């Protein structure tokens, strides 16, 4: 690491951001690091990337990666709308959104659903720790039923499952991961960047200050002990040659992405899960919830859904790059509209 240049001649340092002001050991910091690593490894042009977020600890993090990218730290729960507008205005942008369980699971649940429904092209990360950090320790909507917190007492309400929400809204890419599993986060991020449409990554990202005790399913100790990855994931960029035949059939599933890259999913239990089967994905999440299983990996992918820009039949070039003569109809066009209205020939 360090000085090796990627395909567009950038150093890993070129993808770094400002110094984090989050707590030492916060799961969000490790996710930021993986975003930096992945952008570097994928040779993303940082000038084409936009970083978007809402409000909360998680939403601060876009300041801590990709300094060369434009960023917009918006309103609590309303980042999806900003993303919808920005990616519609300029369809050549690569959008990454960072949200939290409060931002997405509570105040922003509506916008989250409608972003997914429209298949807005964005890598949408939920840094999920089950607790409100900036306001000092209230339960979030993803906290477990019966969980105890020093400040908030006992949580009497069932949790909202971010992945299940996404699936119900017809998400085209749904994954869950754990901030403590750097490799999986990285490979899933790469797959997400290769996906055309909304890619939802629900990453359990422990809050070391308010919710990192062993009884919490959003803690490091719990995650380390209980994570059950569905697959061993390897991302193969489109420029790396590898032949499908090399895989053990039935064990390794190759998912071809829109940009020609492939995601190799080595199933850890061959009977377990086919991520192209939506009903199976819903069943998987229901069973995991019932059995208290912390499953991670690629839960669902649909490569056929059209994005918002496609549904809107937008011209191929970014709307923001259209010159005046393509935006303002000519004088004669106004005259023609007026002629239809004018009295009285």
């Amino acid at each position, binding site marked *: 690491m360090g000085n090796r240049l990627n395909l567009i001649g950038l150093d890993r340092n*070129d993808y770094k951001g*400002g110094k984090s002001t989050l707590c030492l050991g916060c799961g969000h910091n490790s996710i930021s690091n993986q975003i930096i690593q992945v952008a570097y490894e994928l040779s993303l*042009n*940082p*000038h*084409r990337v*936009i*970083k*978007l977020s809402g409000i909360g600890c998680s939403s601060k993090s*876009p*300041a801590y990666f990709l*300094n*060369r*990218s*434009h*960023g*917009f*730290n*918006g*309103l609590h729960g*309303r980042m*999806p*709308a*900003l993303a*919808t*507008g*920005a*990616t*519609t*205005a*300029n369809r*050549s*942008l690569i959008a990454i959104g960072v949200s939290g369980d409060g931002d997405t699971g509570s105040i922003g649940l*509506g*916008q989250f659903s*409608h972003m997914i429904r*429209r298949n807005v092209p964005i890598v949408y990360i939920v840094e999920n720790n089950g607790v409100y950090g900036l306001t000092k320790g209230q339960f979030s909507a993803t906290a477990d039923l019966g969980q105890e917190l020093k400040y908030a007492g006992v949580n009497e309400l069932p949790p909202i499952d971010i992945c299940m929400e996404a699936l119900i809204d017809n998400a085209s890419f749904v994954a869950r991961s754990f901030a403590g599993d750097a490799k999986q986060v990285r490979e899933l991020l790469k797959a997400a960047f290769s996906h055309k449409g909304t890619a939802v990554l629900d990453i359990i990202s422990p809050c070391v200050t308010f919710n990192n005790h062993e009884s919490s399913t959003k803690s490091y100790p719990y995650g380390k002990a209980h994570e059950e990855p569905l697959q061993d994931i390897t991302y193969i960029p489109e420029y790396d040659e590898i032949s499908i035949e090399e895989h053990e059939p039935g064990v390794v599933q190759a998912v071809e992405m829109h940009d020609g890259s492939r995601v190799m999913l080595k199933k850890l239990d061959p009977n377990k899960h086919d991520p192209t089967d939506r009903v199976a994905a819903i069943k998987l999440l229901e069973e995991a919830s019932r059995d208290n299983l912390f499953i991670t990996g690629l839960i669902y992918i649909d490569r056929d859904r059209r994005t*918002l*820009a496609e549904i*809107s*039949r*937008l*011209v*191929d070039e*970014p*709307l*923001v790059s*259209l010159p*005046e003569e*393509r*935006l*303002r*109809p000519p004088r004669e*066009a*106004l005259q023609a*509209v007026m002629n239809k*209205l*004018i*009295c*009285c020939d």
Partner: protein
Amino acid sequence: MSDVEASALESLLVEREPIVNDFQIMIATVNGSGSQTANTALMRSIFRMGVPVSGKNIFPSNIQGLPTWFTVRVSKDGYIARREDYHILVAMNQDTVAEDVRKLLPGGVCLYPQEWKLREDRPDIVYYPMPVEKLLEASDVPANLKPYVANMVYVGVLATLLEINLDEIAFSLDFHFGGKAKAINMNMGLVKAAAEWSLDNLAKRDPYKVARIDKTQGMLLLDGNSAGALGAVFGGVTVVAWYPITPSTSLIDALNEYLRDLRTDPVTGKATYAVIQAEDEIGAIGTVIGAGWAGARAMTATSGPGMSLMSEFAGLAYFTEVPAVIWNVQRVGPSTGLPTRTSQGDVLKAYFLGHGDTKHVVLLPSSIEEAFEFGWRAFDLAERLQTLVFVLSDLDLGMNLWMSKPFTYPDQPMDRGKVLSAEDVVRMGGFARYQDVDGDGIGYRTLPGADHPLAAYFARGTGHDERAVYSERPEDWEANMARLTRKFDTARQLVPGPVVDQVDGTQVGIIAYGTTDACVVESRDRLRERGLETSYLRLRALPLNETTRDFLAAHERVYVVENNTDGQMAKLLSMEFPELAGRLISLAHADGLPLTPRWLTAAILEQEQ
């Protein structure tokens, strides 16, 4: 009617000269009965005879069944304000007929369906029963469509009574149905049948008449929402996000139509724009701000409740300095209020929308011509000033038909404001997003995608320094707010200035804005007839500037006329010019309807006498 009463009416009518091109028709119908077609055709036909008209549709928040009223004012002098009284009543709603007849002016006319067997109990008006059912039965209109064309009967009867040219009605129906022969013929068939029946069966006993003159040649009739939408299209709008709400919905409908016609790429057939129906007004404005940040000309249209939902994002856009245009077609609040009635009740809300120290640029169109002009100009201002621009229209302007000269093509190229390209950034060796380089309070911005390592900046609603870096330093906050104030002062000089008619020698001034203009124009004539000369300043935008201060200083008493309860503009003027506040007299009135010259004239005279 007794013989005595009949002869009383007879003498009343005989004594009166014909009343030509100067009266008001009130058409009382049931919502959802298709009366809009009949009413606009009637209005357009008179307009096409060269006679100035204005129409007001007073309709309920309902899809079908509740009462609706439509007035057509016919004015040879070109007055287009609402008037309360009417000379001709077309009574098509049995639920309201008693009250509708009661309000009819003495000597007036009442048309009603014969089948009602209405008791003709006012001796001072002329009744004309119309055989609506019989004419419908005799027509070849399919049974399921009969209720929707019944209204054509009164169009035909009025054509005969008022001498409205049938060819003009045919043309107006052709216009309305966009040339669809079947619909035109079906409706026109009934109009003709009714006109012929009237010729044969009705003895004209009233003085009202339309006669061809030459006061509308080269003019057009259009609603303000369509005019604003057309303006936006010629302003180069690219991203529209919206949520349905009366009375702004038809602005988006018109946008969809004009954009499809004028902004589809001729080669690929693809769209050079996007119109996104959001999940709510928060989503709508968020999308618009995201697009504006990315460099698009973005807009939304809404009304009162939607404005409330947009409040937080409006503050964010003010502080991150993102351009976008928000049309607020005002209706009556608070709360759901009167969603299908007009008001100017969002002046203060629009001006201050957000939390903390927020203030916005607000444009105030008073005519469809200005709706068109501000439709495109709003984008130039938004991008020049890097801020939200609100266009405050209202239901009266937005949903009613207004006469206008043809719209003028934009007289200047698009002003995209201070946007740095990657090359500019190279040349300058970087940039600071919120630095006041030019002393006008407006920084330079880059757009996402600008291909240079130093082009990026981080837009944030949190405190920031000149380089857009997070900062809680008191000095940074203060400096940033001072610059925003400077920017607002720049806006004072850039927004459309007031239109002033200053009359020498009078101490009485009137300030108005938006659709109350029609009322003020007419009222000034009435006041002049009573010996009271007035000066008039029509505001076209906020923030205010010196022109308005000078006007206040030049008059001892200045009446601020507006269609709301609290006198919001009067309050704003007092805040902006406290030293002149003693000269302001608020004349605010809100009942859901456009203000009338009768009310305003009386209100001013009461103070002045």
